[in-house]
């Protein structure tokens, strides 16, 4: 808050009919009242422009250029009486509390999208929609990683470290490869998100491994099928999101290598 007061010279030069003490006192009044929420919600249009900065954070101080009002700085703006009434401020504060976006929306977790992406993975033969990967969402993949580790734990293999290490290295390698192979680039979050979602069939494999042993002929066939399923859906999503043509098998092969390593962990 004190950082805002570093610009008093600007004010004294431009608005010399007002002393900065006046400005400061009204400001500190608002500061006493819940950190500027009343300030940001008062009626004056200048305040609306001014109030976009959240003064409750110490890092958010505006540049001097933004201090210029769009109307003459008349001074009614900072009447202590206007914003000082506690009831008004409190009602404004509670308004902004109700106006806050819900927690899940703020965190970026959108259950509908998560479900949609999961369905895309579970139906590998259906064509994928390229726009679903526009927002990178790491909540779903995190859940799947933890579920994979949990199912491994159920079969007695305490190897969280390997899972995380291999997924980090694999994501990095896929990120480099896709950036080199596609016309448009990808972001690392997008790659991590897609690879995490396509880990879902691996969870099915490792839960099989809890019940039956996977080292017979049947286990090898199931493992191969699931690796194929994972890499096919991962490559399908990548192809549709990055508009690469004729390269689906080429993208599927490194995905298959990565998921093969995961399968090795769950089988042996």
């Amino acid at each position, binding site marked *: 808050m004190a950082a805002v007061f570093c610009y008093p010279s600007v004010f004294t030069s431009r608005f010399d009919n007002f002393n900065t003490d006046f400005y400061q006192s009204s400001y500190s009044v608002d500061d006493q009242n819940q950190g500027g929420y009343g300030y940001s919600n008062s009626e004056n249009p200048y305040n609306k422009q001014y109030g976009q900065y959240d003064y409750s954070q110490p890092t958010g101080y505006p540049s001097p250029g933004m201090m210029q009002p769009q109307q003459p700085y008349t001074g009614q703006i900072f009447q202590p009486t206007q914003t000082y009434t506690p009831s008004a401020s409190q009602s404004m504060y509670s308004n902004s509390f109700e106006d806050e976006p819900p927690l899940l929306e703020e965190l970026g977790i959108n259950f509908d999208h998560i479900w949609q992406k999961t369905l895309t993975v579970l139906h590998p033969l259906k064509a994928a929609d390229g726009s679903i990967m526009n927002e990178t969402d790491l909540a779903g993949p995190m859940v799947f990683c933890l579920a994979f580790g949990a199912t491994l734990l159920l079969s007695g293999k305490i190897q969280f470290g390997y899972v995380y290490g291999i997924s980090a290295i694999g994501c990095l390698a896929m990120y480099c490869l896709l950036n080199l192979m596609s016309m448009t680039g990808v972001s690392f979050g997008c790659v991590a998100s897609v690879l995490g979602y396509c880990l879902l069939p691996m969870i099915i494999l490792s839960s099989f491994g809890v019940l039956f042993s996977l080292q017979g002929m049947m286990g090898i066939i199931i493992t191969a099928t699931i690796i194929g399923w994972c890499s096919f859906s991962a490559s399908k999503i990548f192809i549709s999101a990055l508009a690469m043509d004729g390269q689906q*098998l080429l993208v599927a092969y490194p995905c298959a290598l990565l998921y093969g390593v995961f399968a090795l962990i769950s089988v042996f």
Partner: protein
Amino acid sequence: ISRFMSVNKLKYFFAVDTRYVLKKLMILMFPYTHQDWEVRYHRDTPLTPRQDVNAPDLYIPTMAFITYILLAGMALGIQKRFSPEVLGLCASTALVWIIIEVLVMLLSLYLLTVHSDLSTFDLIAYSGYKYVGMIFTVLSGLLFGSDGYYVALVWSSCALMFFIVRSLKMKILPSISSDSMGMGSNAKPQLRLYITVATAVFQPIIIYWLTSHLVR
């Protein structure tokens, strides 16, 4: 990383598609029926691998290298000799041999003032193609035992030697005609031939060296 190498140049080597990869793998394993080894150009720039099957690419060598490392891990795991340190050792040994080979090639081309348009990436690509042969050798060694290993070794060595000689011949030797303004550049064409043949002979040695301990 964009200060070390131009990313666009690197992207040229990854502009591949499935058809190219399949055809290239066929050529690597059976190069005797391939007729036309010339790398096609389009107004002075070489065509991308998508359009020209003779162009070198880096997708196949990279994937083959990673597959080789994973296969080595699996082979050691089957023989109960697996541990992550051994995997790291295998990977770094293979990487070091690639680096040595590329450096030797670069040095010999430079010292003998051979003006070819082989860039570093081209050399990395050509020396990475032997990993395809190595994978084939290790797989047949695992599936068919020691006899299968030696048969596959001989087959892939011959195919690879043929491939390297035919490909590099196009790139190293014709530069004689381009700068024949003296300078001794068309002196010692045999040296260029020796380089090509030496590269080719080096391949089976390295294949044997890097795979024999996996198929015991």
